[in-house]
């Protein structure tokens, strides 16, 4: 299969039953994509597929043929944090950090379509990402802060 990953072309040999999440982690080394529940619930494996957030544990690798995949590794310079990541740090929106890559992707997906979301809209948009550490309050704050920063440029 061939697809684009974070702007570069990738070629992989996969069997039909290979999941996209396994290709990303094992073949491509993009290990920001985490496997949490592995059942499509927790959202730790959330990525952008053709610009839309999806759970890569519920996508067959072959379904990504010719498509554009973006993971956390593909944003920023690779060394510096982007606005959303920075806000997560500043607001202590993570503790163990396992859910964070998925959270950041979902937050970006929300802010792309809705640059100024209400608390309720943030909660609704992040339903598919579970965090067992923070109690979500600080994640909410981090997304709000990201929205403010992105809007003020």
């Amino acid at each position, binding site marked *: 299969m061939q697809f684009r990953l974070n702007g570069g072309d990738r070629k992989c040999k996969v069997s*039909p*039953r290979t999941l996209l999440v396994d290709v990303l982690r094992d073949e491509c080394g993009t290990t920001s994509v985490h496997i949490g529940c592995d059942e*499509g619930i927790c959202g730790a494996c959330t990525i952008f597929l053709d610009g839309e957030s999806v759970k890569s544990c*519920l996508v067959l690798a072959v379904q990504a*043929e010719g498509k554009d995949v973006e993971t956390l590794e593909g944003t920023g310079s690779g060394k510096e944090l982007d606005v959303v990541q920075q806000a997560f740090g500043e607001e202590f929106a993570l503790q163990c950090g396992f859910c964070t890559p998925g959270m950041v992707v979902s937050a970006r997906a*929300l802010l792309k379509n809705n640059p100024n979301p209400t608390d309720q809209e943030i909660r609704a948009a992040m339903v598919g990402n579970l965090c067992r550490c923070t109690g979500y309050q600080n994640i909410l704050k981090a997304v709000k802060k990201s929205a403010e920063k992105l809007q003020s440029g």
Partner: protein
Amino acid sequence: MRPAPFGYQLASDLIDASQACARGAIPLAGGQSLIAAMKSRQMTPELLVDIGELRDLRGISIESKRIRIGALTRHCDLIESELLKEKVPWLCEAASLIGDAQIRNRGSVGGNVCFADPRANLPPVLISLNATAVIGSSESSREVPIENLFQGFRENALVAGEILLAVEFDVVEGQKGSYRELSPQLNGVPLVNVSVSSGNTIGVGVGGLNSCPLRLIRVEEALVDGIGPALEAFDGEAFEPLEDLQAGAKYRIKVGRVLLRRALEEVLN
């Protein structure tokens, strides 16, 4: 877990897909139910035919007051459709309560319907709208009332070679409707869901009260005498809901009655 080994074929057109289905392949659309079921080995198909690239099956249109929703139309497309928001907002609401943003970005109407889970969000609404399932194969096509598609727990009525192409329903001026569900957690799989739609006749669809989604014909008939008689008709139904750790049968029926009353009051009053 990972799915058991299977063959994979990317369909180039409908005929291609239909011929694969005739050989026993299962159509793969968004895969948000199918892949999960394959990972848990509840399903172990030998061959999948990926219909994801059949663009003709995608989209929402209206022609002489009849709305057509292509089978590959995703839940996020339903929620964002200005046409549906204007004509049947309760269908958009039901779609918005499916899974989460990530699931709705991939899950399709056809998958939600054909997976035929008794608790799926869209079937009760489509039943209440008197929707028709448009089914095609490489040889023929047919249309059936949507409720006839549901044959049992995760069993649909498609025969070898057939693929769901679209769902269609009429919209009527001033039409009202309601979708109600009770779910143990926000956006979770509902225990029970109910939809009522007005129109030329009032349609009532329920999920979670039997092995598959149902049209409540006796409730619909009793509605000419009002909500009270309709609820009595509901009490007279012999439901056989799923029972699991979340809820027993009696509780689900009780909840179904409450949701039905609220939906009827919303639509009729």
